[in-house]
């Protein structure tokens, strides 16, 4: 029932969406591995403080992104040489993000951290910034390789998908019928997660993938799709759903159909609403999608400004949280739309 624009909006809203680029097959993974290990010569970006950090947000109306930004601000507070953090918000409008980046360049910021509405759309603007000697760091989303991006602090969707799939297979004892609930069709997240799932399933011939659906990071949509799937398939034994926000919708549909007991949910992420569900039902667990990506991005940027050589991309590793360990992470008095994080309390969003 959601409008497509909303789908895209929420698509972008999960940080993963940030890489809207063409689908990359697994064979590209070797190339990506090579690219991210390249060393970047940063001498031309070297400059003395004080620094002004520019953040070009493709969107801010999303909880993951808000936490990510808080991580950036927290890290900035720990460096005296950082005088100011300027944040622009394109509110899902790539044309505005291009303008935002141009405005940040006009303001002559020292460094630009960004997460795009649409990666390709802002490449020209980013390239101009780089030409003007302003380093750019892609923050959070998938790995970007191009002249507009000096370095990446990113989370690997393929590895995440693989971890989720392996835990699901283990929980199901290696057999049964499942479906996959994925983000927006065509995004790196959707493509890499599905590819990883299929790779894992090769080792488990008794597991059958019924269908892969796209719930677009939208809890309501995931719920509605699942309601229809429950009509279509009389037997579903497991669900592959790496995004906790959608997992809640899926689980609710099963629960309302009285079929929750028959199904095994895969790990989601550390989305608080999902963690609450895990705590209550003691199953599923989580594979994290760390919001501290923002903090890592700023650290990386400071190294660039110092003229130190850096790698083209650093990977922020996902971790598995078992259902029994979830109590350490869940914050029952916090909203569903919240992320388990390592932020000090005073830096958490109010």
């Amino acid at each position, binding site marked *: 029932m959601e*409008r*497509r*624009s909303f*789908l*895209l909006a929420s698509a972008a809203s999960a940080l993963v969406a940030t890489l*809207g*680029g063409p689908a990359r097959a697994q064979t590209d993974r070797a190339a990506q591995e090579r690219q991210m290990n390249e060393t970047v010569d940063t001498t031309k970006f070297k400059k003395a403080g004080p620094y002004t950090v520019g953040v070009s*947000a493709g969107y*801010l*109306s999303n909880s993951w992104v808000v936490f990510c930004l808080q991580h950036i601000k927290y890290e900035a507070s720990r460096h005296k040489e950082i005088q100011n953090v*300027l*944040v*622009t*918000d*394109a*509110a*899902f*409008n*790539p*044309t*505005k993000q*291009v*303008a*935002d980046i*141009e*405005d940040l360049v*006009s*303001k*002559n910021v020292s460094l630009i951290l960004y997460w795009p*509405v*649409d*990666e*390709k*759309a*802002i*490449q*020209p603007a980013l390239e101009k910034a780089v030409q003007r000697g302003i380093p750019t760091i892609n923050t959070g989303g998938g790995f970007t390789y191009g002249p507009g991006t000096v370095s990446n602090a990113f989370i690997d969707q393929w590895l995440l998908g693989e971890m989720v799939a392996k835990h699901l297979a283990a929980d199901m004892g290696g057999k049964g019928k499942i479906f996959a609930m994925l983000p*927006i*069709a*065509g*995004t790196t997240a959707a493509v890499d997660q599905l590819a990883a799932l299929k790779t894992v399933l090769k080792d488990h011939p008794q597991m059958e993938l019924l269908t892969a659906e796209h719930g677009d990071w939208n809890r309501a949509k995931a719920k509605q799709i699942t309601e229809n799937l429950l009509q279509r398939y009389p037997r579903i034994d497991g669900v592959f759903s790496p995004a906790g926000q959608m997992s809640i919708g899926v689980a609710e549909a099963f629960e309302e159909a009285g079929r929750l007991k028959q199904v095994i949910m895969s790990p989601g992420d550390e989305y608080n609403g999902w963690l609450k569900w895990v705590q209550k039902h003691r199953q599923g667990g989580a594979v994290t999608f760390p919001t501290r990506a923002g903090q890592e991005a700023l650290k990386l940027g400071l190294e660039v400004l110092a003229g130190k050589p850096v790698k083209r991309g650093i990977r922020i590793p996902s971790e598995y949280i078992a259902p029994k360990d979830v109590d350490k992470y869940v914050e029952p008095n916090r909203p569903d739309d919240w992320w388990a994080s390592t932020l000090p309390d005073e830096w958490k969003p109010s």
Partner: protein
Amino acid sequence: MIRRLPALLARTGIYWLLLLLLVLASAAIPEFRTPANLANVLTQSAPLAVLAVGQTLVITAGLIDLSVGQLAGLVVVLVCALADGSSAAAVPVVALALLLAAAVGALNGVLSNRLRIDPLILTFGMLSVLQGVIFVWTDRSIGRAPPELLWLANERLLGVPVSLVLVAAVALACGAILRRSRLGLHLAALGGSEESARRVGVPTARVRLAVFTLSGLSAGLAGILIAGRLGTGYPMAGAGYELDAIVAVVLGGTALAGGRGSIAGTLAAVLVLGIVSNALNLLQISAFVQMVAKGLIVIAAILANQPRARTRVVAA
């Protein structure tokens, strides 16, 4: 003459506002007045300018076209997908896209003539259809814009943005249509009163068809510029432009009820919107607050532009 004074003030108000904003922003924000930033403002405003100039004709004719934003978006996707960065393809693809945009505009015109439904609803429905068409085609960015479009939309010649030339050409063309052509007279007549226009022999159906076609064409040109700005076929590239265009037209002094339009006013209003957005960005005002501000500007614009009490002499 004295009776017309308030109307005159209302019509020139936008220029005073523009001047005031320029002075204030220059004084308050040092980065604002740099030539590079001013050029930025112009480049950033170009797509909206083209769209709003086209919409000025539409609104002068007493119609409205809500489908232009998504139509521009369709052109963005089409151009980038087909050209995919190739210079050789630039001209034929752009020509094709403009043709398609004009055709969709003409379709609006034909449907409006045939179905006799309010243009607001018709083009609102068309907005949804076009959005669906784009997304059925692709739900992520595809293709690349040819380098010529990047040049057109972003570069400067002797410090002047290239896109400014296109905007000027479109504005002059539409100005000529509005002020110096029979079509302009007829569309003002249509906007004044459809019934009267029809009775005195204005070919209203043809005028409507022409206006919607021109509107489609301007949306196509705006799409070309947006494609150049983004460099890629982003499916939501045109979302929301229709509302911005209407706001610019209305702010610029064109009566929403039709009958009288001002291209220069529209251009000034586009600049006002561009400067406000640029200045708020430079001032670090959050996008959320900017959104509220935009909503309030919409409301203020239509409140300022509402039709005055009827001037028609009541018989008896």
